[in-house]
């Protein structure tokens, strides 16, 4: 279930965010770790554009 609260904050064009101590690292969330593992395997297999793995 996602967090749902009330309010509004739409901006136009590029702009910097607000640095906040309330924004915690999610690097070790299971979903993120799984995505990084999958990405690592894919990139090991296919390489980068113009640098195809032999």
């Amino acid at each position, binding site marked *: 279930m996602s967090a749902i609260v009330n309010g509004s904050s739409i901006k136009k064009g590029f702009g910097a965010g607000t640095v906040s101590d309330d924004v915690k690292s*999610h690097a070790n969330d299971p979903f*993120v770790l799984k995505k990084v593992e999958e990405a690592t395997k894919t990139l090991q297999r296919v390489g980068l554009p113009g640098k195809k793995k032999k």
Partner: protein
Amino acid sequence: MNLERYQYSNSNDYHDYEFYSEGPKGRISKMVTFSRIPNSDPAIYNLAFGDLSTVTGELDDSVSSNNQDREIVLATVANTIVEFCNHHGNHYIYAKGSTASRTRLYQMGITSLWEEISIDFEVYGLKDNDWQEFEPNQNNYDAFLVKRR
């Protein structure tokens, strides 16, 4: 870019970005997290994007919020990529949905914003284990690789 986007907050190290999607379903907490692919040289970062669970507090992209603001959400994610690059350099950024249909949603989002995105970013799509220059409406890609110009 000159698109509508949500205001967001970010962590001190500019790896994590949080904003709220606003629409018929209410205000939904969204998260973008950049993680370096281990041992990548040049550095490649994985972009993880999804909702923040009220139950676990963790990022999860298995939820489909359908808040009728996809373009604003995608523009916000693009904005976080620009901000990440401003602080960490113009590295390759890898993105893939957790399912084929979600990856397809990412592709539709990139396509709908293509005129703006293509100005600032090189975008590649993974097809048949090969990176191809992204072409809107041409292929169903398996993943995406983005690099700011």
